[in-house]
């Protein structure tokens, strides 16, 4: 009985000792995974087309709110700039939100992406932000100028 107990404990300790290495390996692969979805990977914008028609057709209830875009910028700096960059031009982990694909997307599509995230590609769901705040973020995104073209 004591022997079985000792073996069980030894197994648990071995698994516990191995876990940091498994985690470190996963972090490294997650970094590579994230890099694939970063600024230059245009396939990430295909996610926009996945918004259901009904969701894409939703109108921004705050589109006539003159403060919505500026408040949205405050929220963007707080929650999004870390990945998408200070000016939404894309960052180490996430694509530009000033790309033509995003500019052409309907407010409903952007709201749907914010709500559902793109979990497989590293973008978390943001439904924890109340709906009005997500619409304020959409107002800001729709107010962004196009991306500056990089010199050839």
């Amino acid at each position, binding site marked *: 009985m004591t022997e079985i107990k000792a073996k069980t404990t030894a197994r648990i300790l071995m698994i516990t000792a191995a876990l940091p290495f498994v985690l470190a390996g996963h972090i490294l692969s997650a970094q590579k995974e994230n890099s694939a979805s970063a600024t230059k990977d245009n396939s990430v914008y295909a996610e926009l087309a996945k918004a259901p028609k009904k969701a894409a057709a939703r109108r921004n209830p705050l589109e006539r709110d003159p403060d919505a875009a500026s*408040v949205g910028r405050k929220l963007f700096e707080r929650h999004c700039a870390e990945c998408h960059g200070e000016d939404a031009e894309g960052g180490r982990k996430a694509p530009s939100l000033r790309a033509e694909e995003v500019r052409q997307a309907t407010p409903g599509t952007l709201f749907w992406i914010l709500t559902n995230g793109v979990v497989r590609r590293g973008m978390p*769901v943001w439904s924890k932000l*109340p709906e009005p705040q997500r619409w304020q973020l959409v107002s800001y995104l729709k107010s962004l100028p196009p991306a500056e073209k990089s010199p050839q």
Partner: protein
Amino acid sequence: MINSPFPKIGFLLSILVLAAFALPAQAQESPYIVAYDHYLEEPGSLEVEYFSTFATQRNGNDFHAFWAEFEYGATAWWTTELYLDGQTTFNDSTIFTGFRWENRLRLLQQEHFINPVFYFEYEQINGADKIMKEVEGHDVESDHAVPNALARREHNHELEFKLLLSKTFKGWNVAENTLAAKNVTGGHPWEFGYALGASRPLALKASANRCSFCRENFIAGVEMYGALGDRHSFGLHDTSHYLAPVVAWNLPSGWTLRLSPGFGLNDNSHRFLLRWGVAREFSGFGATLGRLLGGRKQ
């Protein structure tokens, strides 16, 4: 081995040094202390948290249990956490009581009517652990009246599984957690417990000002948690239950403060618990660690 503080201090220092290279980030943290909603840590971010629980104790000494929590977003669908537990029992002693390694996996890619998250945890704690991060089996107040010197002799290796269900609608979050746990040392039966939570930000629209005291920075709610017996005697008899208002204050500086007075709902429960916590999230922790471990160059 478990009582030696040195490996833990080294580990803490390593985490803090790495976190110093990462940037403080600002998230919208839930106010729950026991219950979980379905939101995971942002990928690559590390949240460092400290929590305290003060509890009154009948037929024994009141105590202050505390834990440090390191919560890392490995991916957008997997969050992993390490807990280091300790406690001070008044008129007795202060001791380290063990560690926990917790994982939460998001089961569905998108938001649904109800969002399930699978939770599993391995705990290596001693019998003096009093953080009450969950209440299970036939946990009752009198368990905590045992002197530390005696209680710490009991060593537990426990596996814990939870199904976290959560929904956010019109600003309200409602969460339900079901728990099953088994102490793998000895012939202990499976034990069960639950946690329920509901919360809402004080304002749904963000204000134009950059302010610490804006209503949208506060999230208030209530949680209820307790035990459901074990495999041999499932039910509410000889179990303890608590009801606790909760409030979180998400500061623009990246800090989150939580406060929760809790009240025992039956004679098996502590009469009063006061829990509080402070947390700070650091973005870019994963990238820093990846670089140190020889990952890609930025």
